[in-house]
């Protein structure tokens, strides 16, 4: 046994050896390449699951005997609505962490999540309108579920507008975090609105009156699409947070050396071509 090994084992306890330092990943120079490695895989997973989900939803799932083929909007509507609420919670979480621990990357994650969350909220409302028209006879009704989902869209837009209206990025993060955290109250209101109030919107369980095997393919298609949207949201957030890191840290050394690396690699390549 070497001396250094003995010193090492006597000084540190075995638990500490295997502990991962999570704060290491909270620094943009470390996280930037890591996110770059991860996000293409999640885009690929999202694409594969979307193809699979659409196959289940359009080929395997039969026509609903009450709603006809209009029910197929469920394969987009429910996953989009889930993502709109889930992304808001994750956004508020990162914004809150950024506010509490003053970690810049957490706040950047919140900023990166907001546009994707807003998009899913809009898509939930859009597909809901297109589903509501043939089944309820109305594009829109001012009931609890729909109104609270619309408020969620305004919260996302408010968060983004507030952040872009403040020039100082750190102050924008803090103001946005307060808004995001206050807005969290809306998420359980959306989720339980169908139970708390008398509403036109159907409950959490989907009204599928036919044989259980039929319900299974519908449910399966919906879950696969939800997983696809989830993978898409992860990919999109990592993709956007990389962009935000470059924008905010444009004067930082790590961005400078990163740009230097890419330009020298490009130069080497052109040298080789010559």
């Amino acid at each position, binding site marked *: 046994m070497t001396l250094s090994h003995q010193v090492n084992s006597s000084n540190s306890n075995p638990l500490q050896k295997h502990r991962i330092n999570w704060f290491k990943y909270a620094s943009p120079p470390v996280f930037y390449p890591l996110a770059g490695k991860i996000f293409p895989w999640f885009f690929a997973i999202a694409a594969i699951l979307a193809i699979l989900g659409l196959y289940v939803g359009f*080929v395997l799932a039969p026509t609903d005997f009450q709603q006809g083929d209009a029910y197929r*909007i469920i394969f*987009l509507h429910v996953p*989009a609505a889930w993502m709109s609420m889930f992304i808001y919670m994750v956004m508020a979480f990162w914004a809150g962490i950024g506010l509490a621990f003053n970690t810049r990357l957490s706040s950047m994650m919140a900023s990166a999540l907001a546009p*994707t969350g807003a*998009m899913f909220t809009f898509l939930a409302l*859009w597909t809901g309108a297109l589903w509501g028209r043939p089944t309820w006879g109305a594009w829109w009704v001012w009931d609890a579920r729909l109104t609270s989902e619309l408020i969620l869209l305004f919260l996302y837009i408010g968060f983004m507008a507030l952040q872009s209206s403040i020039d100082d990025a750190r102050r924008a993060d803090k103001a946005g975090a307060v808004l995001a955290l206050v807005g969290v109250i809306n998420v359980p209101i959306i989720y339980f609105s169908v139970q708390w109030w008398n509403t036109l919107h159907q409950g959490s369980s989907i009204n599928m009156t036919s044989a259980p095997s039929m319900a299974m393919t519908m449910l399966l298609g919906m879950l696969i699409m939800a997983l696809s949207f989830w993978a898409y949201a992860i990919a999109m957030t990592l993709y956007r947070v990389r*962009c935000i890191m470059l924008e905010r840290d444009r004067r930082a050394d790590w961005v400078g050396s990163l740009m230097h690396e890419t*330009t020298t690699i490009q130069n080497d390549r052109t040298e080789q071509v010559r």
Partner: protein
Amino acid sequence: MIWTSWSEFFAMGGYAVYVWGSFSVVALFMAGEVVLVRHRTKTVKKQLAQARRVGSAMTAGRRI
């Protein structure tokens, strides 16, 4: 297979406007978001490369 023909598939039992109106807009928005962020990334990288060139030109000028 529940569809007997492509035209039946596209008709969606009379709900074509609602079903395809949903799926096309969702696809458009999700693809559009990727395009927007790609453009945003390209813009910032271009700006960074430009700033680098200006910076190195300035240091070269100072040496003279």
